[in-house]
């Protein structure tokens, strides 16, 4: 059936994360989605997500969310667990409770102290970004701190490996690599 063959024209409003015109989807904590999510509008995920997500809107992964796979959206806010790649057209924000293992590609990245991130960051500036502030910090390379925070506007390209201190109360099980 051709029900799903036609794509929505969906004139996505540009600029800013306040897409007032689009409604928000919501996947509750006890819902799991395996496969491909696409389309427009914003989405809040509280449950499991496995596969591919390509959203023309804002994606929020709540603290209870666990996502694996390729995730693309205009903005991505993570408070939950992600294993995989995050690609944002505008920005990625990692909240305190976020645990991300994978690769982040975004023009803008911010990260609250307490967020756990292991992986690679690639910050590509859009060709002409009038809204993008001049980077207050510009770091390239590899950093391996136990804790890391990052303010929106900072520019970082490279790899991050976060080793939790052994007696950390919230320290997850150490990986085999010591």
């Amino acid at each position, binding site marked *: 059936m051709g*029900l799903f063959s036609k794509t929505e024209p969906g004139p996505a409003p540009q600029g800013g994360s306040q897409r007032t015109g689009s409604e928000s989807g919501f996947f*509750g904590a006890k819902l*799991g989605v395996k496969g491909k999510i696409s389309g427009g*509008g914003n989405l809040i995920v509280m449950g499991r997500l496995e*596969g591919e997500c390509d959203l*023309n809107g804002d994606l929020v992964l709540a603290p209870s969310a666990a996502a694996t796979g390729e995730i693309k959206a205009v903005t991505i806010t993570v408070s939950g667990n992600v294993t995989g790649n995050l690609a944002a057209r505008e920005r990625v924000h990692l909240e305190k409770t976020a645990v991300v293992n994978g690769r982040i590609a975004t023009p803008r990245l911010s990260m609250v102290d307490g967020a756990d991130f292991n992986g690679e960051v690639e910050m590509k500036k859009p060709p002409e970004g009038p809204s993008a502030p001049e980077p207050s910090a510009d770091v390239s390379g590899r950093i391996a701190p136990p804790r890391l925070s990052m303010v929106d506007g900072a520019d970082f390209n490279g790899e991050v490996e976060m080793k939790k201190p052994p007696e950390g109360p919230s320290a997850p099980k150490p990986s085999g690599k010591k």
Partner: protein
Amino acid sequence: MVKEAASGTTSLVSRQIVVEGEISGEENLHVDGRVKGSIRLAGDLFVGANGVVEAEVEARNIVIQGVLTGKVLARVQLEVQTAGCFNGESTAGSYEIRDGAVFEGISKMLNRSRRPGKLQPIVSPPETQK
């Protein structure tokens, strides 16, 4: 009515969202967008007026205002509302198909003990004297 599940959260596949794959969970789901694949819920599935679902579905109640195509199992009831369209094979505990609704396909009853012919007496039996 049981149809509007009062308990549990209801997830929403909003109008512009397309899900291709498997959705499963303990809650209710409202689809205003498109879902292709399979849906398994402990709760109810509600296909909104804009919703298009092409999937194998298992849910407690299934209420269709939009379009649902596929093989479905409604453990309690399948309801096709006035503007709703169902096409496929369904098994349900009971059916409610409103005037104007489209139902094309096969329907089976889940509860085989409720056969026609086993009518309940209209007059209730006399009360036992104390």
